[in-house]
């Protein structure tokens, strides 16, 4: 995916640096010093990340970041459909993350699928006396009330780690007593600097408690793969799975969108891991590579250009039969996608987008916007690491602004300076920019739409972007009086 360096008219390293400096002016000295390294003009030539990342958030700046618990419960565990996920601690954390991520699931709610809010609902007395006993009781209750659950995860909230509870011991005892995997995950919100550590802890927990506890019931084939780091937002997994299967591959497990615990547990038996969200799942890909020799490949399923590249890259790992199928698939869908582009590109050509999201979106979606003729003029992550920014640099046009853990103040400033036609970010930003009369899409959750992945996703994406950018409602914002 080494494309030539892109540029944007009017954007130079100098203009971007000036914009950044102006944004920093409002900070007190200490804050300015802390924030400066997180903001920079893109430098695709350098081959490295242009900003610092994965640092503590500066206090008081209105960050969009979440916590380790959010990364564990919301991102990794929540989508595993056949487990009971207990938010262990006070009532809030589980309540906020209940139904707010759009990781769609099959199964019957409360029977074989558990998209509910399970909590130990800590009270003052649980803080004082500890919650381990309560945990043991509630695990029994969960098993009794949800007999078809394949396992129970125990996701620690802040108090648990602070009061010295030992959920690992309780989990161990209760696993045996209930003859059911009880997975303790020490993902207290105060750990680390963002949701990112939650992903890592969760990956480690999968490594320690889940992987290798099952094997697939059906015989192995050379085409067995797993889809990693796709959370089925608005049905993404369903789109990509169907596509991969159309290419002749067997998707044995999905991590963790619409995920099944036992299939995840048996993933050490696949021949290749296909990873979409590198940030949240690279750990387990590396573990599986090291421990079981499973290679992995990082792909991008947004927009026909990137899908085409990805499928060909994927085909390289397989035999001629797969290659032939992949080319057939590409030929078939390219024609369909061209129609989508013909419809929407004239309405979107040259429109500017600013991205501020998490995971893979700030780089992976760039190509999809470009397929629609749009220009991405700024991008950044809530909780990325250096390797994310390395991967972002070549995707973004030269000198465009890159921001890490941006504060609302900075985003506002950049938007005022860059005047994008679309801001693509999260719910906390949505109404800020809409109040400015700016088209906006929530790009964590596809704004209640989707899927956006794969060939099924692109027409939806294109329609949604057009709808946001070209909604006649924006023209009404300016009052005639």
């Amino acid at each position: 995916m080494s494309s030539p360096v892109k540029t944007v008219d009017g954007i130079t390293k100098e203009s971007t640096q000036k914009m950044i400096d102006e944004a920093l002016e409002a900070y007190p000295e200490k804050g300015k010093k802390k924030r400066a390294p997180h903001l920079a003009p893109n430098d695709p030539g350098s081959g490295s990340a242009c900003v610092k990342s994965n640092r503590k958030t500066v206090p008081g700046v209105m960050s969009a970041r979440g916590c380790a618990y959010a990364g564990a419960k919301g991102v990794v565990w929540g989508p595993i459909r056949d487990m009971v996920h207990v938010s262990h601690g006070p009532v809030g954390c589980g309540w906020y993350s209940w139904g707010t991520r759009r990781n769609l699931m099959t199964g019957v709610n409360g029977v074989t699928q558990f998209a509910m809010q399970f909590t130990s609902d800590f009270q003052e007395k649980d803080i004082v006396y500890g919650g381990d006993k309560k945990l043991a009781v509630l695990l029994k209750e969960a098993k009794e009330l949800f007999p078809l659950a394949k396992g129970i995860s125990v996701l620690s909230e802040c108090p648990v780690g602070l009061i010295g509870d030992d959920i690992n011991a309780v989990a161990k005892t209760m696993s045996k007593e209930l003859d059911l995997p009880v997975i303790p995950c020490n993902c207290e919100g105060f750990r680390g600097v963002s949701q990112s550590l939650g992903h890592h802890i969760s990956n480690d927990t999968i490594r320690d408690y889940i992987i290798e506890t099952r094997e697939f019931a059906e015989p192995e084939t050379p085409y067995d793969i797993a889809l990693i780091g796709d959370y089925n937002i608005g049905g993404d997994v369903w789109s990509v799975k169907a596509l991969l299967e159309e290419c002749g591959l067997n998707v044995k497990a999905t991590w963790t969108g619409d995920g099944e615990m036992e299939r995840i547990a048996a993933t050490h038996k696949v021949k290749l891991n296909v990873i979409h969200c590198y940030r949240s799942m690279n750990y387990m890909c590396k573990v599986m590579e090291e421990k079981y020799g499973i290679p992995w490949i990082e792909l991008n399923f947004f927009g026909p250009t990137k899908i085409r590249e990805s499928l060909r890259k994927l085909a390289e790992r397989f035999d001629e039969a797969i290659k032939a199928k992949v080319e057939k698939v590409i030929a078939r869908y390219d024609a369909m996608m061209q129609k989508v582009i013909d419809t929407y590109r004239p309405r979107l050509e040259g429109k500017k987008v600013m991205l501020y999201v998490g995971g893979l979106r700030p780089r992976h979606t760039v190509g999809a916007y470009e397929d629609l003729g749009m220009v991405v003029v700024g991008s950044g992550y809530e909780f990325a690491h250096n390797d994310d920014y390395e991967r972002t640099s070549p995707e973004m046009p030269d000198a465009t602004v890159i921001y890490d853990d941006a504060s609302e103040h900075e985003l506002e400033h950049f938007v005022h300076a860059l005047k994008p036609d679309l801001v693509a970010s999260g719910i906390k930003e949505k109404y800020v920019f809409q109040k400015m009369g700016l088209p906006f899409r929530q790009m964590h959750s596809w704004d209640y739409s989707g899927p956006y992945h794969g060939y099924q996703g692109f027409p939806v994406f294109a329609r949604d972007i057009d709808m946001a950018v070209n909604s006649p409602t924006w023209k009404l914002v300016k009052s005639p009086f």
Partner: protein
Amino acid sequence: MSNNLGLTVKPVTTTPREEEARVAKWIDSPEYREKNFARQALVINPAHTCQPLGAELAAHGFEGTLPFVHGSQGCASYYRSTLNRHFREPAPAVSDSMTEDGAVFGGQNNLHEGLENALALYKPKMMAIFTSCMPEIIGDDLTAFLKNARAKGHVPKDFPLPFANTPSFNGSHVTGYDAMVLAILQTLTEGKKVEGRCTGKLNLLPGFDANTGDYREYKRILEAFDIPYTILADISESFDSPNDGTYRLYPGGTPLAEAADSINGKATISVGPYATSKTFAFVKESYAGKHVSLPLPMGVAKTDAFLLKLAELFEKPVPDVLKAERGRAIDAMTDAQQYMHGKKFAVYGDPDQLLGYVSFLLEMGATPWHVVCSKGSKKLDKELQALLESSPYGKGAQVWMNRDLWHLRSLLMTDPVDALIGDTHGKFAARDAKIPLFRFGFPIFDRVNKHRYPLVGYQGVINMVTEICNKLIDLRDETCEDRFFEMMR
């Protein structure tokens, strides 16, 4: 092959269809309901959340006020997202992003740096500080920290920094709201009481109410009476601001000077007795003027009581325009009563709202068959019981105190009703029970503009009648056989 759990490696299993069907049937059974109600430790789908969210809502209700979470940044993100989704509006708030080292060394450094940055970046007139779990467990001393902050010049000496301890392992969003309003009023009114001074105003404590239309309705009523007022706290503009192309961090909110002077008010009415109990206690002991606690004015009788009290306190007759509105609400009720009469409802929500729903339903001749509160009290239980007993339409109704929405599901499946009233979280139970959910309360994540239509006052009565009756008629039209599909309803 081995693994860390020491379990034998077994093949991946698939739940047989019949087994799934059997359990699906079983979870709807009376037998399951019994097991479900025997739960001691596990809470499933509670209808309330934690204190800080309420505290943030309260903070947004004051002029130029930046809510400030002392604790983990993830907490702040959760509260903000929830408010964003409910109102479809911005919810600017900061946290001081405490992390592991905070757990070791305490949160003072984070707090100080956070206050300084927030002040510089977002130029608030007040920062309303409230805590999430971590600082509460490690025992941060906010009084001392804030004293130090001023001493070290992180914030000006006279800059108002009310703070509330709102750990998530106590109370609910409703008590957190109370704690924050209390802290703000204590801070702002300190030293402002002037012997002999009377502002002539009414102070209105609406309690935790995430319907901006309700606030506008209070204002309309008070303006009709020509009673000057101060709403404590007024979120109506904060969460229902115009879109004119300019983003404003702090639209609306109760002016700080007015809030400070509220201690010299002519009278203070709380219409959220459960959601303002501590604040009201403070008012009773500190505030000038009369102090009255009334139920949320939902339904005709409770609205009547509110207007009568206003008339009494301010020695003004109920204005003609409100008399006419009352008459129009009655007209809507008598015209539409047949669509709700005898229908059974399940209702859940916060204490003050629950009393309101129950009162309204009984007035319409409907029965609030299951009344569920996931965070209540014996006092609330008694008050609900008494309300139900006051009407023949409360006969057979049951109050379920401190039960969650998974309990509610069992109730709906084993003892069915015609409709459900509550927030968005009840939608799964409603779907399983094949009944409509009327989205009153907080939060509402899946419909638009619900917060713009008041449920209090006579207009609230009309809005509830309209929404409920028209949906019930919709369902009749959509589900009836052709031969019963009629022009008139």
